Structures are given as C-alpha cells and as structure tokens.
C-alpha cells in the first residue's frame, strides 16, 4: 500500500532533492505553444451559451462518495425499483443536454454494475481498492460535470470510467 507521510513532517521531502536538480526542474517551467493553433476550435465553441457558474469546487466527504459495492448495489436496487427512473421529475432549472446524457449514462451503468457486482468475499477484498478508485474517479467527474455541465470531454471521460469499471466487474465475476 502507498505510504503516507505525516502532515507535520515538512522536511521529510525537501531534503530528498539535490539543489542542482531542484533548479533544473524549476527551469522546466516554460511556455509551450501548441503545434496547431487551437483557437479556431475554441472560437467555434464560444458560440455556445454561457452557463451560470456553479458553486465553488469542493470535494465531497468520503462518506458521501460511492462506497463499497454493497452500498452501491443497494442504492441501485432502489433506483431500479422506481418505475420511470429514466425520466426524472422535472427540475426548476433544466439540466443541460450533456448533463442529461451523464445522468442517463450513470443510471444505465449503475444498473449494469448491480448485475455483476455479486462477487465472492475473498475476491471482493482483493479488487475492492480498484473498484473504490474507479468509483471515486467517476464521482469526481460527476462533480466536475455539475460545475461544467456542457463539457463533452467530461462526459466522454465519465463514459470511459464507467466502461472500465464494468469491464473490471465482468472480469472479476468471470474469474
């Protein structure tokens, strides 16, 4: 497991780097121009309506993040039990198209996870960190999407993360 260095030990790291290397690293801080100017692509996207800024980014408390598959499965079972979950009740502020896609994607994958997340206890112990990490990544992307609800890049990242989590769950289930 990864070792953590106590917060109150500031010298534990700083002594580890030779002076010369430290300065050479600082010298790497320089401007780099893209090989192809991305302005045209940026300008094309500026026509999209601006979205009202969301709350200041904050990370959720660990307890609120997706936890163990048991909790996840329980939540999903509840979600699946609600008829018409696909179309949630209308909210006063209409979500963006990307957000709607993200919500649909989340529900679809959660349903799929629920089907494959029944893993023997011994196996679950071994793969749990990977699941936790993937769930955490997905939650971070969802948090980012809440702040930047029109980002297709984030939506694509969410799709990839869910896809990998599902692939891992399937591999575990088949092993």
């Amino acid at each position, binding site marked *: 497991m990864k070792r953590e260095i106590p917060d109150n030990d500031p010298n534990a790291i700083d002594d580890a780097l030779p002076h010369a290397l430290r300065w050479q*690293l600082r010298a790497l*801080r320089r401007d*780099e*121009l*893209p090989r192809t100017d991305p302005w045209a692509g940026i*300008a094309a996207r*500026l026509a999209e309506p601006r979205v009202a800024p969301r709350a200041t980014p904050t990370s959720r408390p660990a307890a609120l993040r997706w936890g163990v598959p048991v909790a996840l499965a329980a939540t999903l079972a509840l979600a699946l039990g609600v008829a018409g979950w696909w179309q949630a009740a209308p909210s006063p502020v209409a979500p963006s198209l990307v957000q709607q896609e993200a919500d649909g994607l989340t529900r679809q994958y959660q349903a799929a996870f629920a089907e494959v997340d029944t893993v023997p206890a011994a196996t679950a112990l071994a793969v749990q960190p990977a699941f936790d990490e993937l769930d955490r*990544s997905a939650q971070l*992307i969802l948090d980012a999407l809440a702040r930047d609800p029109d980002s297709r890049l984030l939506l694509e*990242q969410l799709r990839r993360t869910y896809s990998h989590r599902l692939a891992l769950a399937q591999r575990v289930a088949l092993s």
Partner: protein
Amino acid sequence: MLTAVIERPPETSQAGASPVADIDESALVAAAARGEVAAFEALYRRHVGRVHGVIVRLVGGHGARAEDLTQEAFVRAWQALPAFRFEAAFSTWLHRLAVNTALMELRSRRSRPQDDGDDEALETIGSADSAGHATALSLDLERAVATLPPRARAVLVLYDIEGWKHEEIATELGMAIGSSKAQLHRARGLLRARLGEH
C-alpha cells in the same frame, strides 16, 4: 468599445512585443466577460503558451491530448469569466483552471486499466547519455518527468516545477496532504533513478 482597439491579436504569446501588450489586462478580462470574443482572443494569445506549457507537463507530452485540453481549458475559462471577480490575477486564475482541467483528465485516465502503469509497469527511459551537456540534460530531465506515473508526475510538476504547496496540490487532486508528500517522494526517487543517480 474595446474590440475597436484590438486591431489584430499577436500570433503567439511568445512573440515579444504584442499589439495588445499595452492594453490593460483587466480591461480585456472585463470585455471578455461581457462576451467580446476579440478581447478573449487577445487573452488567449497572451496566455496560451503558459496554459499549454503546464498542461503538457502535467499530461507528460505534446500531441492531440494536450491540445484538446488546452482548448477545453480556454472554453472553460470563457464560460467561467463572468464569475471572475479579480480576487486573484487573471493569469493565476487561468493557470489554476488549466491545471484543474488537466488533472480532471488525469484522474479519469488513472482509472483505466492501461494506465495501471501508474505503479510499477513503467520502463526506464534510456539511461541518460548526459555527458554534461545542458541541453541534453534538460531534454533528459523533461523526458524523465514525462515518463513518471501520472499521479506522481502531477504532484512533482505542481510542487517542483510550478511551485505549489502540498496543501494546494492535495486539494486539487482530492488527496490527503500526506499522500501528496508520499507521491512527491516517490516521484523524486523514480526521477533520480531514471536520470541515473544513485
């Protein structure tokens, strides 16, 4: 109108004397926040080098991925500009936004199986043929940093190159301060090994 002042944006932010160099940046920011694309392009020209630079270092290389993220960072900046309150310098705000954009992508990629190399699977780059030449050394160092595992690289870039504090890194990466220190320790060890130090 500011747009009337900006006749033509400079080619690049590194072009030296820029036609908009004398325009007060806060005026450009205010105009861009109001929706003036020409003002935003002027800001883009001024800062694209810095933004792309930090993104390249964080993702470990040039290429389409870094350029996509640079584009994404500027689009996000455009979206967020109306909320910019001049509590920090625009360049600082933009830099942080760029870092955040790159880290978001790294966090996502970190969860992918092919990126399991975050741990031990990375090959050492060719042992530096660094016979004391500054340029070669710089390139070796740049390459060595680029081949670090993504999470360790992000911490090392932010701490040792960008000058961030562990508290800031921990917040941005959603990790404990101790984990940031541990990642830095690991990154430095790997870096020194790749540079052939003992």
